[in-house]
């Protein structure tokens, strides 16, 4: 097993933090963009770029709701994203066991 076999989309610090944070929520639950930004500690611009990458891969689903005056964006890990993180964790475990 080599590091090349780790999902390159998750195997970068910021996206690993995003996916790991969202995976802590029960399946189907979503997190507001502002709370995620607060937890990850990124600027909105940086966070959007990483979220877009994950969404394009089908790991994330985002939704824009207009409650009152300000639009509110929420993001949730999809089943595909959860499976990807499970596979990534397993691959990491195997890799560390072999080191």
């Amino acid at each position, binding site marked *: 097993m080599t*590091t090349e076999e*780790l999902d*390159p989309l998750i*195997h*970068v*610090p*910021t*996206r*690993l*933090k995003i996916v*790991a*944070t969202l*995976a*802590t*929520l*029960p*399946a*189907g*639950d*979503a*997190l*507001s963009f*502002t*709370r*995620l930004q607060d*937890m990850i500690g990124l*600027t*909105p*611009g*940086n966070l*959007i*770029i*990483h979220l*877009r*990458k994950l969404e394009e891969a089908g790991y994330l689903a985002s939704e824009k709701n207009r409650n009152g005056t300000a639009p509110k964006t*929420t993001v*949730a890990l999809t089943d595909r994203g959860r499976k990807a993180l499970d596979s990534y*964790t397993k691959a*990491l*475990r195997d*890799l*560390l066991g072999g*080191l």
Partner: protein
Amino acid sequence: MNHTPDNETLTGNESPLDPQAAAALLDQTTQQARRKFQPNPPMLNLFRAFVMLVAFGGLWLSVLGQHPYTGPKPWAIGVCYGLVAIVIAWSTRALRRSGAGVSGPAQRARNIGMGVLLTGWVLVYVWEAAFYKTGAHIVYGIYPATAPFFIIGLAAAAWAAGRSDWPLTVTCLGMAIVGAFAALTGPVYCWLVVGIGLCLAMAGNAVYGFMQQRRSVVRS
């Protein structure tokens, strides 16, 4: 605050991690998220355990040696209500903070479930008032010490089991068992038994919570 993405992030291509660093980051992030989304923090459960022991211990001391039995003294009831008010305030704050920005079916189910349990808790005391109105003397003895924990403990255990929350199921079932068995010890000692029993149940849940928060994702 800098709102402009850095060059590395603009392409979304950060430097990959080495496996040890990735495992450490995954564990650290997961443990941090578990703490932040936890509506029942272990520290709060530890405080609840302390409150149970002090509040019910005080009620027991106030009825100890009463002949005839007249019920807990106002000072003990005051201490109990004061501590319960602190627990309610801390619990409400923890619930709000953990649920901030979270939406979805599990969150909705949790809120509805908690609303039903709170209503049930109030109804148990309404029922007690009915006993009081009919002149049942036991109202200041066994019933208030044991019934809320027996009835609400069972309801909460069923709710937690439905959500596959096994640690909470065990804790709530423990509450119900303590409530049921404490009733057998009579109107004086039931306060002490409930205090010790609930303290142990809450402390056990707190210890399990601390262990779960520190559990490794990679090395489990």
